[in-house]
Structure formats: structure tokens, C-alpha cells
């Protein structure tokens, strides 16, 4: 760690990891409700559980991105973060907001209150005061990182990262706009989170991957930046209009079916480019970085994102197919592997890379960390397969044969039991990961490679 203010990242990563634990536990309980439907139905209804599971995911991923930005921007810009105090204030606002959301969801304290109460739009239920707090925190963050970059060295990595981070903040503003017309409401509703994951988060992902590969492989910055530009161009070109695949059945004009189908079927390209990018950088590597676990997570991120977001997304993105599969367990399968592959793995990669630096600790405990990668990835892959099969059966019985929704759910019981088992494996893997990150060990199991620089070709 070259700059003192990179330490800020530690606080963000720590809170993110705590929420990660909450998220997977919430997911595990929700998976159990699928098997035993009346579990907790009075105390914490399923819709609240699901909301906690998805909202905590989004919040911890964002905290991870903020942490990654605070970690890599000083190194890239070659100067300290503009104001560490503001960075901690931003974190405090986000933590208070998150706590406020959880309390409001669980106890519904101020029903109907325009500022303090739940807002009632699915996934954007956060009370108004929390949304405004998020906007303030985002402004503080953007001021802080933008000033740091403007006064320091400007690199393609920081430029792309800033573009992505500004995009996150700008598209979040649509959560404050709640038109009366349900179709228009839904149209803007997809601007939050879904234009994130298909557009601006991909920029963050590409920038962070580029930073990690730069550090881990020692390939020339010039080469890495070319890939970065190409990936960013592909992401924006396909992702923005590709979001039209959410507009098929919400009352928007019919041309969205074609716009959405055509552009979103090309959304696999930036993810494929990221696979080519990360593997070719590793093949060309000019240094053996001792942190093998970070490299494993980086490569895993690119591959799992390609399958989860790219392939599983393409599977049901064409509107004649989506007409049948819309809102079935196929969507759940895609959602789980896409979020895990693209954004969870990315955060775990950057945290795996940064933690030893932040804690000033030589042994990385990386064998355990790599075990957690394989266990977590296997658990998520199995969960995805199970949900995909469940979705195919559900689509056929419910949408083709026209059987009643709940009758079909009864027939999917076996799949839900297998999903619960896969979820248990993921929870265990997360605990292993957290242990490997936070708990020091005495010696490193993997012999440190020769770090003498090899001559350039």
C-alpha cells in the first residue's frame, strides 16, 4: 500500500463483507421457505426476506465498488484521496441508511408516511429519507474521487471507473421519480439496478479487472487499456438499448420487442471480450504475483460472468422465448449466476487482492481462499442448474400446459430441496472466504515465486 488513504477501503470492505454474510443467510432462509412455505410467514413474510436478500446484495456490491475505488484511485492518480474524512462520512451515511431500511422493512414503523415510510415499489421500497441519504452519499463520493483524479494522473482505468461511478449515481436518481402510469413507472423502474448491471456496472467491472490484471500480470498498461476501451465500447453499445428486453410485457410499444431482442442478444459480447482479455493477459504475463487467489478470482469472475450474464441471459432474452419463460425460475437461475459471476466475484477478487496490502500482512491464507472459490462457484453453478431445470419444467407445465401456478410449484419441490442444499454449500463457502480474509495465519502454504523481474521480450 503506497498511499495512506487507501486504508479507507478497509472500512468499506469490512462493512461489505458483513452485509455479504447477511445476504447469503437471508438467501438461505428464503430457500428454506421454498421447501417449508409457512416458515416465518407471520414474523418475516417471504417478500420481506427476498427484499432483504436482494437489497443487501446491491448495497454490499456498491460498498465493494466504493472500497475498490478508494483503493485503486490513489495508486492510479498517484496522490492521496482528496478528503478521507468525507469518505468516512459517506460510509456512515450509507450504514445508517442501510440500518434504517432494514428496520423499516422488518417492522414497517411508519406506514404511509411520505418521508419515513416504505415507498411500496418493489425493490425500491426504501423510505424517501434513505433515498435522499444515498444521493447525498453519492455526491460526496463523486466529489471525493473526481477531485482526486482531476488533480492527479489520469489513466484509462480511472476514466472508465469514473464514467461508471457517475452513471451509477445518475441512474439512481430515477428511483425518486414515481409516475402514476404503471407502464411509465415500470419503464423508469428498470433504469435503477438494471441499467447498472447491463451498462455502467460493466464499466466498473472492466476498470477494476483491468487494474487487477495490470498488477497481477505485469502486462503493459498500453495493451490493457486497448482492451478496456474495446470492452467499454461494446458494453455501452449493447447494454443501454439491450435493457429494452425488460420492456416486452409492461405496456410499452411493440417495437421494444425487436429493439430489446436485437441489442440484448449482443450483450454477450462484452462479457466474452472480458474472458478473452483476462486469459490473454495471464498468458502474456511478465510476473508471477504471489497472490494466486486474487488471480483465480479475477479469471473466475470473467468466466462466470460470461456464463451467468452472457449465456444464461441470452437463453431467455429473445421475446418469442421470453413470452413463455418470463418470471419463471429461469429468471432466478440467470439472476443468481449473473450477479455472482459478474459482480460478487469481482468484489471478492479485489478484496482478495487488497486485503493483504490493507492489513500489511504477508501470508495471504490463500489456499483456504482458493478452496472457498471452488466451493462457492460449485455451489452457485449447481444452484443455477437446478433452478434452470425447475424453470424449464415450470415453463412447460404452467405456460404451455396452462396448469395452475401453485399446482406447478408443488411439482417443483425436489428442485427447491436441491437448491436449498446448494445454498447451504454457498453459505459455508462464504464463511470460509471470510475466515481466509480476516484471520491471519502463521505461514503461507504456497511457496513465494521468484519475484526478480524477468527481462522484457
Amino acid at each position, binding site marked *: *500500500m*503506497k*498511499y*495512506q488513504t487507501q486504508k479507507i477501503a478497509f472500512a468499506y470492505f469490512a462493512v461489505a463483507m458483513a452485509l455479504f454474510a447477511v445476504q447469503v443467510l437471508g438467501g438461505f432462509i428464503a430457500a428454506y421457505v421454498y421447501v417449508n412455505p409457512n416458515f416465518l410467514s407471520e414474523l418475516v413474510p417471504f417478500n420481506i426476506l427476498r427484499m432483504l436478500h436482494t437489497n443487501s446484495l446491491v448495497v454490499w456490491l456498491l460498498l465493494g465498488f466504493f472500497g475498490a475505488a478508494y483503493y485503486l484511485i490513489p495508486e492510479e492518480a*498517484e*496522490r*492521496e484521496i482528496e478528503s478521507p474524512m468525507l469518505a468516512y462520512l459517506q460510509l456512515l451515511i450509507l450504514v445508517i441508511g442501510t440500518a434504517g431500511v432494514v428496520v423499516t422493512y422488518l417492522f414497517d414503523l411508519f406506514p404511509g408516511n411520505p418521508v419515513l415510510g416504505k415507498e411500496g415499489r418493489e425493490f425500491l421500497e426504501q423510505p424517501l429519507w434513505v433515498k435522499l441519504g444515498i444521493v447525498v452519499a453519492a455526491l460526496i463520493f463523486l466529489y471525493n474521487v473526481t477531485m482526486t483524479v482531476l488533480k492527479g*494522473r*489520469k*489513466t*484509462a482505468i480511472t476514466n472508465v471507473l469514473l464514467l461508471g461511478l457517475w452513471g451509477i449515481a445518475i441512474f439512481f436518481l430515477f428511483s425518486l421519480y414515481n409516475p402514476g402510469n404503471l407502464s411509465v413507472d415500470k419503464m423508469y423502474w428498470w433504469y435503477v439496478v438494471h441499467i447498472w448491471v447491463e451498462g455502467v456496472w460493466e464499466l466498473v467491472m472492466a476498470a477494476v479487472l483491468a487494474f487487477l490484471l*495490470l*498488477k497481477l*500480470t*505485469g*502486462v*503493459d*498498461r*498500453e495493451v*490493457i*487499456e*486497448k482492451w478496456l*476501451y*474495446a470492452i467499454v*465500447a*461494446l458494453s455501452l*453499445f*449493447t447494454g443501454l438499448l439491450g435493457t429494452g428486453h425488460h420492456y416486452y410485457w409492461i405496456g410499452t*410499444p*411493440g*417495437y421494444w420487442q*425487436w*429493439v430489446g*431482442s*436485437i*441489442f440484448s*442478444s*449482443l450483450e454477450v*459480447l462484452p462479457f466474452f471480450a472480458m474472458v478473452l482479455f483476462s486469459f490473454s493477459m495471464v498468458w502474456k504475463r*511478465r*510476473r508471477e*504475483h*504471489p*497472490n494466486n487467489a486474487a488471480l483465480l478470482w479475477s479469471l473466475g469472475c470473467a468466466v462466470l460472468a460470461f456464463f451467468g450474464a452472457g449465456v444464461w441471459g441470452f437463453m431467455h432474452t429473445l421475446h418469442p422465448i421470453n413470452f413463455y419463460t418470463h418470471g419463471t425460475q429461469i429468471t432466478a437461475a440467470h439472476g443468481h449466476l449473473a450477479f455472482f459471476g459478474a459482480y460478487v466475484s469481482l468484489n471478492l477478487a479485489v478484496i482478495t487482492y487488497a486485503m*493483504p*496490502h490493507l492489513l*500489511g500482512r*504477508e501470508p495471504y491464507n490463500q489456499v483456504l481462499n482458493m478452496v472457498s472459490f471452488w466451493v462457492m462457484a460449485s455451489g452457485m453453478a449447481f444452484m443455477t442448474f437446478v433452478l434452470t431445470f425447475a424453470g424449464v419444467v415450470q415453463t412447460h407445465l404452467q405456460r404451455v400446459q396452462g396448469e395452475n401456478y401453485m399446482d406447478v410449484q408443488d411439482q417443483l419441490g425436489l428442485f427447491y430441496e436441491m437448491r436449498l442444499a446448494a445454498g447451504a454449500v454457498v453459505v459455508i463457502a462464504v464463511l470460509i472466504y471470510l475466515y481466509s480474509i480476516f484471520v491471519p495465519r502463521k505461514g503461507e502454504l504456497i511457496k*513465494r515465486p521468484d*519475484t526478480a*523481474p524477468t527481462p*522484457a521480450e
Partner: protein
Amino acid sequence: MQCQNQPPAAERVGAVGAPSATGDIDRRGDSLPGDSLSGDWGPLSQLPGHPMMWILIVSELLVFGAAFIAFAAARSGDPALFAASQDSLDRLLGAINTMVLLTSGLFAALAVNAVAQGATGRGRAFLGIAGGLGLVFLAIKALEYAEKHAAGIGFDTNSFFTLYYLTTGFHALHVIAGIAILALVAWRSSLENVETGVAFWHMVDLIWVLLFPVIYLMR
């Protein structure tokens, strides 16, 4: 820690940091960003103009290719409807527009030749003619849309016209963008810039040459 007064690039690249406890030792991968937009782009370096333009061109061809596949799929679902709807298109205006755009492409190619020979003024004149013909194309397109509108045909008339408006409209947006790009490279008229802008214009040209027979003519 903060280095406000940065030494020149050559010194900094040579300055290899001491090995740290965490393994980041050398900084060869950390040279200053300089010409990352030029230099070696692999196979894309062989092509005229900027490599990023070719990434865009390939993406555009994929999008229009997907649109033609969508058109074929929709047509196979209801060939009679598509044949009847196609008959109401103005093939003559389409054919004139094809001539206009191809001629425009010729002048764009002549502009590259002129700039390559150092005749920047002549190159700019040719770019002006190319862009002007682009405007003629748009005017004829507008006439065609007005005819359709007068006949009560719109976006939602049927799936043929949805795809007709999507593909021709999306192409027309590219013509507008192309005219802006030609104006830009006429202003900043280095050979690489002109080649880059004209490559985009030829793509707009090429897409029309594919679009016209698929949408207007093929039975």
C-alpha cells in the same frame, strides 16, 4: 507520499520501486498512459482509420445482421402479410436513394485520395459533396415517411412496418451521425481522421445496400 511535481515520464518508468512485503515489486506494467489509442491493435492495425472505429463497425454490422435475421423470422411467420405490405413501399424512391448514397460513397472515397495526396482543400470539397448527398438521402427518406404517414401507415400497423421503421429509421440515424462525422473530419482533416470518418460512412452505405433489397425487393 504525494508527488505533486511529477518527474518526466522517462525517469518514472525507469524508477523501479523497492520490493514491498506484499509482492508489488516492479512497475513495468505501470508506465504512463501515452499512445494506448494508437500502436499495435493486432489485426485491426492493418485497417485504414482508427481501430476503435472498426470495433464500432463490426458491432453495427452485427446489430443490423441481427435485425435482418429478425426480419426473416417474422416474415416466415406470415409471408402473405409481408408480401402485401412490401408492395405498398415506394421502390422508386428506395432505388433513387441507393444511387444517392452510392454516389456519396464515391465522393467520400475520392476525399481520402485527395487528403492522402496532400490536397486538403479538394478533400474537404469532396467530403462536403458526400455529406450533402447524405442530406439528399435524408430528404428523400422524409418524403417516403410522409407518404406512409399520409396513407395511415405507422409503427404499429403490423410487424412488417414495425421492422421497416426500425431498420430504416435506425439506418437514417446513422446517416445523420455520419454527416456529423464527415463534417468533423473535414474540419480536423488529418489522413487518419478522414479515413476513420469515411470508414463509418462506407459502413452506412453498405448497410443500405443490404437493407434495400431485403426490405424493399426480395419476394
